[in-house]
């Protein structure tokens, strides 16, 4: 029964080793997809390259469907899978700040690590900024503690929140994704794209 580490199929130390291998897969795929280029990443916001949208939503759907099927087969104990907590205000404000950072910096944390390893100097500077940003958050914590802790909603699933079945919810996400993919393919043809 999965997750393996919870059911003692692998030890804590093996779990850390697996983290390393999972990371290799993560980094390899991001780089192969072209996520080590900031102009390619930013392209989704101008329509000239929508690779971010395609990879991101395909991955989210595969992850959701995978977990859904595995739990239906009884192969995974969903009750011990970590579901991210929801603090409503900090999720929104944090996301808005990250969105601004994305369009200004051209990377997100994971993609900046990938780009730095292949020699992108802008990514190395971005990573330096990220360390600074985390440090500022830590040092000034009392200033934003109230916002950080406000509106704690527990660990809700979005399907429960809207009162619909998980399967139906994934279906809706798939329909939305297909429409977005169609729009993305159209935009890539309409807006000129250069090699970078």
């Amino acid at each position, binding site marked *: 029964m999965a997750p393996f580490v919870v059911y003692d199929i692998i030890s804590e130390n093996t779990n850390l080793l697996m983290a390393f291998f999972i990371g290799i897969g993560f980094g390899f795929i*991001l780089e192969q997809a072209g996520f080590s280029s900031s102009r390619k990443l930013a392209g989704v*916001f101008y329509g000239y390259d929508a690779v971010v949208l395609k990879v991101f939503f395909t991955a989210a759907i595969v992850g959701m469907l995978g977990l859904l099927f595995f739990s239906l087969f009884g192969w995974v104990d969903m009750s011990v899978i970590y579901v*991210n907590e929801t603090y409503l205000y900090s999720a929104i404000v944090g996301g808005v700040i990250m969105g601004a950072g994305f369009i200004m910096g051209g990377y997100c944390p994971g993609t900046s690590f990938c780009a730095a390893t292949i020699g992108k100097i802008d990514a190395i500077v971005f990573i330096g900024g990220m360390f600074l940003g985390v440090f500022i958050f830590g040092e000034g914590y009392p200033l934003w503690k109230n916002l950080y802790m406000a509106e704690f909603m527990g660990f809700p699933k979005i399907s429960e929140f809207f009162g619909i079945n998980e399967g139906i919810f994934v279906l809706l996400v798939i329909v939305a994704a297909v429409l977005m993919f169609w729009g993305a393919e159209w935009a890539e043809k309409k807006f000129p794209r250069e090699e970078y």
Partner: protein
Amino acid sequence: MNPYLAGVLLGLVVLSANLISGRGLGASGAVKSAIVATVDVVAPAHTESSEYYEMALGTHGNPLNNWLVYQVLGVLVGAFLSGVLARRLKWKVEHSPKITSKTRLMFALAGGVLFGFGSQLGRGCTSGAALSGMAVFSLGGFITMAAIFGTAFALAYFFRKLWI
């Protein structure tokens, strides 16, 4: 690589992380671990008196002996291997021909600061909160994803010279 194929493979990596370790992927969490560990070595009295650092140290033990830190080390190795195979290793500042490298680097720094700060406030970045959160149907994951992409979209016009 075809982006849809890359998406399927990335989804399988997210799935594996959940099946093996009962959790999703991440990136910004490792930066937090590194900062907390550094501050703790440089100024241990300071971390003890700070609620935030105390909280981070309390949950992780040795902040560097942590799942996400090993996972990010793997990301560095995996991305480097891919770069070698694709012959993409090259020192470069990537930017639109309309701006200088200096401008690009200034905005990269500012963007990094914002992303670092926002990832702490939002309890995770595009990988940990948005992608992995969505895979486990987390409401917060969907909200953060919408806020990140929505804001970047809304601001795209003002920063267009950086990219096109």
